[in-house]
């Protein structure tokens, strides 16, 4: 088990120039605590796999250092980093039994058979694989095989970190939640540092205590699921997390207040000096309300999603999405809306203004 320090890491593939755009991974400076559950979340091309490969040792960063506890492992090969990895596709030995698959990493390290037996049974119990230990791995379904891959990652007691790279890709949608919850439970039981890479918000937010959101090679926010929902630090976080994403609307400043389409919008940001930046206000659809004291809008569309409705309204050509519960009345005449000030923020060049 280990604390992981990323000390001013940057990475670029190939190119020799030193401009910021050439870096697939822009500077990251972070400390991830021992035993934590972290998720790296972002769309494809955001740099999350690059970062994962740097931590596992498959890539050496162009700049900076990786530390496990206080040991610099930047130049240490993967095989000597004591890490376990679980990939998108199950890696199992089809001809071996489930038991032998789980025992394999321990036998490789010369662990005595009696200790192996205890450990394999323990892990099999956690994963509900106990009744299948004697079966050949080839006979298992995709989710069964992926459980074996997870088990092989968990079976070693000496790992510094377990890394998961989109581990639920091949799992049937209706089985996904079972494995998602299993992983969370396993983390609580074994207490090893875990890093989970995904582009799926539900997987990331369900699994992790701390979610690292990446966009265009930059970490845009590290926070708890509640932080990401309630206080997006960047418009990308607001957009990418939550369905539908946060409304991002152009604004200007006048007398310290945000003005959207001619109306002052109270926010939780205290704006003082915002001259050059592109200014926007961000508010999630959950925090937009019909309010007779609000500003006038026109209703464009109502999507009935059964449990709630997504209402699209427009003000001076700007579309705003809001959530209305199934019993909530949608005004038929002169609709007006307002934003909850404590959940409305100003963003300058994409970044939140506090």
């Amino acid at each position: 088990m280990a604390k992981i320090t990323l000390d001013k890491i940057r990475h670029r593939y190939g190119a020799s120039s030193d401009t910021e755009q050439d870096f697939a991974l822009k500077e990251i400076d972070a400390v991830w605590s021992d035993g934590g559950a972290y998720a790296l979340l972002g769309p494809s091309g955001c740099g999350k796999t690059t970062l994962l490969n740097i931590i596992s040792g498959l890539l050496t960063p162009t700049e900076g250092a990786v530390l496990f506890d206080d040991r610099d492992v930047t130049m240490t090969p993967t095989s000597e980093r004591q890490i376990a990895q679980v990939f998108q596709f199950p890696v199992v030995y089809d001809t071996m039994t489930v038991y032998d698959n789980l025992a394999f990493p321990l036998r490789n390290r010369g662990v005595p058979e009696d200790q192996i037996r205890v450990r394999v049974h323990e892990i099999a119990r956690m994963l509900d694989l106990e009744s299948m230990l004697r079966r050949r791995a080839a006979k298992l379904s995709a989710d069964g095989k992926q459980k074996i891959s997870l088990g092989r990652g968990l079976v070693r007691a000496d790992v510094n970190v377990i890394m998961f790279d989109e581990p639920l890709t091949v799992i049937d949608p209706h089985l996904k939640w079972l494995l998602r919850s299993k992983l969370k439970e396993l983390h609580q039981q074994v207490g090893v540092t875990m890093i989970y890479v995904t582009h799926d918000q539900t997987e990331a937010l369900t699994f992790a205590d701390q979610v690292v959101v990446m966009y265009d090679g930059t970490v845009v926010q590290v926070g708890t699921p509640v932080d990401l929902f309630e206080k997006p630090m960047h418009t990308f976080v607001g957009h990418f997390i939550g369905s539908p994403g946060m409304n991002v609307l152009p604004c200007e400043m006048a007398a310290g207040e945000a003005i959207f389409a001619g109306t002052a919008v109270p926010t939780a940001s205290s704006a003082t000096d915002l001259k050059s930046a592109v200014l926007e206000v961000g508010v999630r659809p959950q925090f937009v309300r019909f309010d007779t004291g609000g500003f006038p809008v026109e209703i464009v569309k109502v999507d009935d999603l059964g449990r709630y409705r997504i209402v699209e309204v427009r003000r001076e050509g700007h579309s705003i999405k809001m959530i209305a519960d199934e019993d909530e009345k949608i005004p038929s005449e002169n609709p007006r809306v307002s934003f909850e000030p404590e959940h409305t923020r100003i963003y300058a060049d994409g970044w939140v203004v506090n």
Partner: protein
Amino acid sequence: MGIELRNVSKLIDGETHIYATDLTLQKGGFNVLLGTTLSGKTTLMRLMAGLERPTSGEVWFDGEDVTGVAVQKRSVAMVYQAFVNYPNLSVFDNIASPLRVARRPKAEIRERVEKISELLKLDSMLDRYPGELSGGQQQRTALARALVKNAALVLLDEPLANLDYKLREELRDELPKLFEDTGATVVYATSEPLEALMLGGFTAALHAGRVIQYGPTADIYRNPTSLLSARVFSDPPINTATVSKTEGRFALSEEISWPVPDAYANLADGAYTMGIRPHHLTLDESADNAVRISGTVLVAEISGSESVIHVNVHDNNWVSESHGVRPYEVGASAHLFMKVDRCLYFGGDGELLAS
């Protein structure tokens, strides 16, 4: 008018894939086929397209019997889950290909491809090749090719399944709009209830080769006629439990009971299956007309803006869904508020009992 299946069934290698089905999809409508893998969605589509011949029954299209008419002779377009494009043709040529096959004049081809590519935001990449596009752009190219034909029947078989969720969200919003003015009858297959709700229109709920309910999408979500229909159209799954009816009250346990609603007043006393959807079992105390139920948290799942808590309640594993992000530790206790006026009651045969 539109597409009509009259007593259509399909056996493949002696196995029934579709049981005798009557289904009429309105002309110009947006229709969703909702069901799990193997429920018969793809087979139904292939029957509609003319890619399969029904074992019995007839397929009618716009007032004409088209049973046995080959797909090439019908005005049909189909889009699959995997992005099917010609890798060696530019985006323009990919979209233009059905018009070239139909030998349309050059000027018309250019005009129609440009119009459709603008609609699908592909107009800036007409010279590129599929390999240079993102997954979403590739699937939009496949969609554009299906649209440019102005086919009278458009069949979309889980077209968004391979895309990431933000893109899916966007395209689900755009798709019904794209077809709105074309007059085409659209059939869209999906295994995701939420997707059906986002697409709107009409939905046929499918289970094991049978259409178990058909109607306006939000309507059949709210008013399932059977427990099976409620199960097909519920994600997370609908919660069920056995309740007993005595002296004008439904009871889940000795402590938890509520008055019988009017719609069920004539029901004989006895045991029934109750169903309650996860969003009617919330963590919000303010819920009107609710009874409080306590349980132990098994799992807390969090999407970006909704929380789904799995709870053990009276030996039932139930699921509760609430707005916002609500972290819960496994093993903690949670108080849930069940909106009893939203409960559905089913008989031994699984049919809804409300009068």
